[in-house]
């Protein structure tokens, strides 16, 4: 493969305009991790099953291992690095810490993105909606119970210690 086949793709990542230099079919996951050094987005399976590489593109959740970079030209991408506001964590992140939603942490960035995406679409999700909303993100540590609890607590912001 030669460098000349690489293209320039402009997109916004976490609110900042970025220019990616990549082969058009390169995975967004690799562009984020290798080129932009945004390593919070993880690779678990490389085939869109585990959700560890979840990011938001124009507010929609995607598995970044399945997205060719050519598709994100002009798009707004949000990764886990863009979730906390300066030093202040998002209510979902805070709830994950307080209620044991993260164990080994490798699925956590994707899970936090999925939970935020769910809460943006459904303000107070039912248990069934939470289960459904997170079903694309696999966790091998928690058995999901503490993740459900964290999502529920994040909706009740007054209970969340920030």
């Amino acid at each position, binding site marked *: 493969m030669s460098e000349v086949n690489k293209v320039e793709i402009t997109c916004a990542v976490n609110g900042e305009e970025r220019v990616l230099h990549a082969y058009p079919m390169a995975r967004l996951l690799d562009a984020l991790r290798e080129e932009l050094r945004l390593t919070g987005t993880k690779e678990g399976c490389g*085939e869109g099953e585990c959700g560890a590489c979840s990011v938001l593109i124009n507010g929609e959740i995607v598995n970044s291992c399945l997205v060719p970079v050519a598709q994100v030209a002009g798009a707004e991408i949000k990764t886990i690095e863009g979730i*906390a506001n300066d030093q202040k964590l998002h209510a979902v992140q805070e709830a994950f810490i307080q209620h044991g939603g*993260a164990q080994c942490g490798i699925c956590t960035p994707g899970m936090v993105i999925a939970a935020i995406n769910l809460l943006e679409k459904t303000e107070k999700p039912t248990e069934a909606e939470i289960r459904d909303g997170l079903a694309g993100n696999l966790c091998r540590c928690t058995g999901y119970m503490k993740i459900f609890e964290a999502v529920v607590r994040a909706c009740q912001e007054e209970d969340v210690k920030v």
Partner: protein
Amino acid sequence: MSSPKTERRFVGKSVPRKEGRDKVTGAARYVDDIRFPEMLYGATVRTTSPRGRIKEIIFGENVPWDEFTIVTAKDIPGENYVALILNDQPYLVEEFFNHTEEPVLLLAHEDKFLVEKARRSIRFEIEEFSPVFTIEDSVNKREIIWGEDNVFKSFLVDKGNVDEVWESADVIVEGEYLTGAQEQLYIENNGMIAIANHEDGVTVWGSMQCPYYVHKALIKLFNLPEEKVRVVQTETGGGFGGKEEYPSMIAGHAALLSWKSGRPVKIIYDRAEDMAATTKRHPSHTRHRTAVSRDGKLLGMEIDFTVDGGAYATLSAVVLSRGTIHAAGPYLCPNVRIRSRAVATNAPPHGAFRGFGAPQSIFGLERHMDKIAKTLGLSPEEFRRRNFIQEGQTTATQQVIHEKVDLSGLMDRAFELSGYNEKREKFAEQNKSSRLKKGIGFASFMHGAGFTGSGEKYLESVVGAEATEQGNVRILAASTEIGQGTNTIFGQIASEALGIDYNLIEVAKPDTSNVPNSGPTVASRTCMIVGKLVESAALGLKQTLVGSGFLKDSGYTSEDFSNACRAYIEKHGALKSFSKYQQPEGINWDDEHYRGDAYGAYAWAVYVAEVTVDPTVYEAHVDDFVAVQEVGRVINPVLATGQIEGGVAQGIGYTLYENVVWRDGRMANNQMTNYIIPTSADIPPIRVFFAENPYAYGPAGAKGIGELPMDGAAPAILSAIENATGVSINHIPLVPESLMEELETETI
């Protein structure tokens, strides 16, 4: 200040995970997040058939081979084996190979896509030998593939005289039970980065449970003195046993490539390689023959337990040991004989996985207990109650149980919380007219904490505590945080022991150049065994501060303590305290006869599962799960509950979803697409309850917890399925195809 022991400022509290913030913000650095300048990417070329001899290696065309670093067995500076127990597993095949996916050749290049292309281009010309794939063929010596008889290890446990019970027994019940392989499926794949050269020696960074296992293996591989080898654990995305022994292999490979190329080398497995090549839970086969009296008392148990170890010995002897000791369960029986063996097959070596042999033998036992109860016409719970072990009675290894044990009480609690008795009645009535069949079942079991027998004595684990210039206390241990909460509970235990703020305790990253060997992070030993050493090392620090006049013996604040640390360092320099494991009095183990005190302490549990079986699509779903256990003092309720929930979820996967499909000794479904683990949509509410009974030799009274929850789900779920359908099933995984077979056979 009153004694921190009674005040309990930090133990028993759900303080948040120490590294939680880094994990939720994506700042935590796992091995694949790290890169070095000039770094190359490494890949492993592996065998594609199960047994044979490599005659020739054929390098593909259109690959610029002169740009590659290529390592073969000939490049190994030291010994070509992964140092562990028997040292029979090579780092790289020299000529003969014994399983598919066995490493033969290593490649490195700066372009990771090119390295993958090169890997795929290599072919082997081989002479094939006849392989062995099943326990049965291995035991029957269809081919001798390992040693003289295919047996890695065997054990005999003999209590009383079981030969004398058969004639006088009222009832004799026999049964046969099978469990399949299971993939650990940590979401972070295995990976290592190495920098290795003659001048500086070898340094590796990576995902692992046991830094000193890797350290020991690299010393042999490179024939270097121990100070020339350094192993650093990076944030580790789950282990579950799957990162106990195999990381030594990957670390060695990365280091060999670095040694030859003179550049840093990173090897990260992709999911397919990780699933196909690395270890899984041992498949098992258990036979039971049990003598009981008509009133439901166990008279004699003869148990035959065999595990499939795969192609090399690796940890099979130890897995077999734990499985053997747990095979007779938490029941009193005067006459017990357990014969067990780990045998070789031409599959990648099976290895450590949460529970370590116990989930397999407990599955057989608990299904068999249900079968005996049915034969006797007793309810499964009544039969258990008549045989539960009590304080002062002896286990199969003749260990006298000195702790208070109340399995009947745990059962009462589990039944009450799950509504077991009412549901048994209700479901029996409903099932008559309902298409969907509902059932409820349980399992009762125990799990020993720490290394088996004299293991802890030989390990001689050491933990350090040091004062820092900032006035903090830093814990030095090789015990790894892999998600289970090591950092946090060590912080709690130390702050409790010292009576100072939790935030003043730092836990050093495991790095063999900086932390002593506190042993491997396995066997439910980190809290109970290593945690106790953390407690005493911390107290040693305090003793020095008090002894040297910098601190009052009591009545000090956290600030006083910090000031004392700083003042000491200013005057005398570094302040460190180390604590080494001392076996508690009265623990005696006879390794030759496999008799005595197998474990310092046991956790005890009763788990209840409620299921719905759909006889149209042959699917079983777990609707509710209640886990009641006694694990000594609970250090951190949120973390402890998380351990149980996660273990139960893995147990549900083991029972109903996770089916390793073998084709010619290779995992055929080595993808997340077709090896299915439970998702958030599959897992029922898991309701966790702890009965607390402080253990005298555990830190603040804690025992082990990590492996226990893996043991109970499978037998509880199959018991519930039997309750729902009337069909007794003796094997897992019970995927819909197998359930169909079982239900159809029954109705024909």
